[in-house]
């Protein structure tokens, strides 16, 4: 893998990238959590029940 090492030789501070990854995760987690909580209840009920429905011929436009 020396060619990989060679390509990345000039990348300073690469050992700190995991901190950046962690911060990205925490940020995204908070955003996803907030927006998920805000989803309307009726939509959630619809999707939960979708696999239990009989083959009813109704519009599937969401």
């Amino acid at each position, binding site marked *: 893998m020396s060619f990989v*090492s060679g390509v990345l030789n000039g990348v300073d501070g690469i050992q700190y990238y*995991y901190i950046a*990854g962690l911060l990205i*995760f925490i940020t995204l987690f908070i955003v996803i959590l907030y927006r998920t909580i805000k989803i309307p209840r009726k939509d959630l009920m619809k*999707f939960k029940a979708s696999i*239990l429905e009989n083959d009813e*011929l109704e519009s*599937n*436009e*969401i």
Partner: protein
Amino acid sequence: MEIQQFNYDNKTVKYFIIATMIWGAVALVVGLLIASQLAFPALNLGIEYTTFGRTRPLHTNAVIFAFIGNAMFAGIYYSLQRILKARLFNDVLSKIHFWGWQFIILCAALTLLSGFTTGKEYAELEWPIDIMIAVVWVTFGWNMIGTILKRRVKHIYVSVWWYLATFLGVAILHIVNSIEIPASLLKSYPVYAGAQDAVVQWWYGHNAVAFFLTTPWLGLMYYYLPKSANRPIYSYQLSIIHFWTLIFLYMWAGPHHLLYQALPDWVQALGVTFSIMLIAPSWGGMINGLLTLRGAWDKVRDNADLKFIVVALTAYGMSTFEGPMMSLKSVNAISHFTDWTIAHTHIAGMGWNGGLIFGMFYWLVPKLFRTPLYSKKLANTHFWIATLGILMFAIPLYWAGITQWLMLREYTKDGLLAYPNFLETTTQILPMYKFRILGGLLFLTGFLMFFYNIFKTVNAGSMVANEPAEAPVMIDSSARKYGESFHRMIERKGVVFSILVFIALAIGGAVEIIPMLKIQSNIPKIAAVTPYTPLELAGRDIYVANGCYNCHSQQVRPLRYETDRYGEYSKIGEFVYDHPFQWGSRRTGPDLARAGYVGSSTYKTAIWHYNHFTKPLEINPQTIMPAYPWLAKNVVDLSQIPTKIRVMQMLGVPYAKDYDQKAVADYQAQAQKIVDELKVSGVVVAPDKEIIAMIAYLHKMGRDISPANQKK
């Protein structure tokens, strides 16, 4: 609004169900065999094809890829079509997928028993089979994504997200971990070495657990549990949160397999931290499943399929709490290399995966064949026997693991090891191994009941190969609607969703692996450590081919009771030429990292090794190590030596230029020295026998850092 008529493909589902049953029986029988081989080593039969080092990888591969894999495809293909209201994308792809997968399994069985292996756990299959796996996996993904694209529902139900993550996750893992240079048709060397190979391998290994044994099964749980209980899943919001969290976090947890080992601290710390964090999304799945049954527990009482799903979720919760606890360094110091790890994996494998397979099939097969289950009583009996079997399997192993650790770390009042001979600890836990066989036998008995019940149900019913269905045509409304959340929008857009999943998956591996590959300060070199000689390299290949790593480790941890027993703890720079790494994950026998360090407890002479390989019971009457008489008979193919040297050079091992031209001569010269040494003890053996190469390899381990070598 237009109603479209189409057919669901049930035939492919049926084929995968049949394959699951057949390979499941094989996998469990082999499991029973290897459990028995540990307790009764005569069952190794003295034949190279049936020795534990080869049969154990056969069991793990058969369970994971043949039994669980085929069941996963059956479950996915049935549910995918009905969730998306679309037939599988392409019948030819379905056939290639099915027959290709079975062919891979057959190749795996033949090659593993023949000793063609990479020596990396759950990735043992050699490069031609790796290519086949990639082709068949792409076929599966193509078929699945094609079905998603031609769906008749706009919203993609949660199960399909998990299936997509499975496809993408396994693709990334398989490709990255399988980068290897072939030396011959059935022999290759990974591009990674030592600690780098260890990080990549256990990033793969742990995430094989994640993306083959967890994510597709969570997806299947999200379909089959509501269908069995006829109740919607408890919380859709929870499913969104724990999906993204789980697929992101899992990819970071791999280093928890390498704690206290020759790996930089920052990598170990990442593995521990993210493993603990993983409890949350894992339990999110368990909670969502169990609470789905809120108010419907009476149904569990009467239905074996729901019983199995409940046990599966419980086992999942147990394993996903136990795993993070075992990721704590203080706990890992106890559990690693012991049977505690085996108990943990089997609670998960038998409980979670096995339970879900049985629960799913007990619901699916009657549905598919349009007939009631042949015998509910038999199914319920299976449930109790399987559950008891899991307990009788795991509890003895917990006992064995703790017992062995307590003995290994025990000191006398004079400050010496109380049990300096590793074999004393193995002998102590043999009764637990025998008891564990009963657990396995119970589980197999339950499986045979399941097999019979499903067989009779199939025979009593009739399946419609192309099941008619109809659904409204999908109205194209891809633009984001007013007030619609971002996640709701991407749930409708399969490609966007997949790209985001890929990014989430890639980050964890990238931040752990890229620095390990790039930063030289992560891998301090040791000047005294030299590449393997041609003879030692051949010996290493024989060590890998016979699966010695299944019982022996090569990694002395910096714990006092290990350094007192084996010698100096292992340094990262010792392994820079190890393609693949062979640190091992289980000590059924002692660690071998100092087997070449003169004066260490594991250093033995050539004649000792010769006798121990050919007649281990004469050296140690209580040993459970099988005999390897074929090593004294099989001949090393010397014509392959120059090729192996050239491949190593390509991988960066600093052999001299054109060294491949004199490699065979060096091989023979070094082999002759060992032959002469054995002759003094009355053993006559030709220099090209495998056993000479093995002795040379064992005498290499730890030698470079030993005082004897420094003096030279």
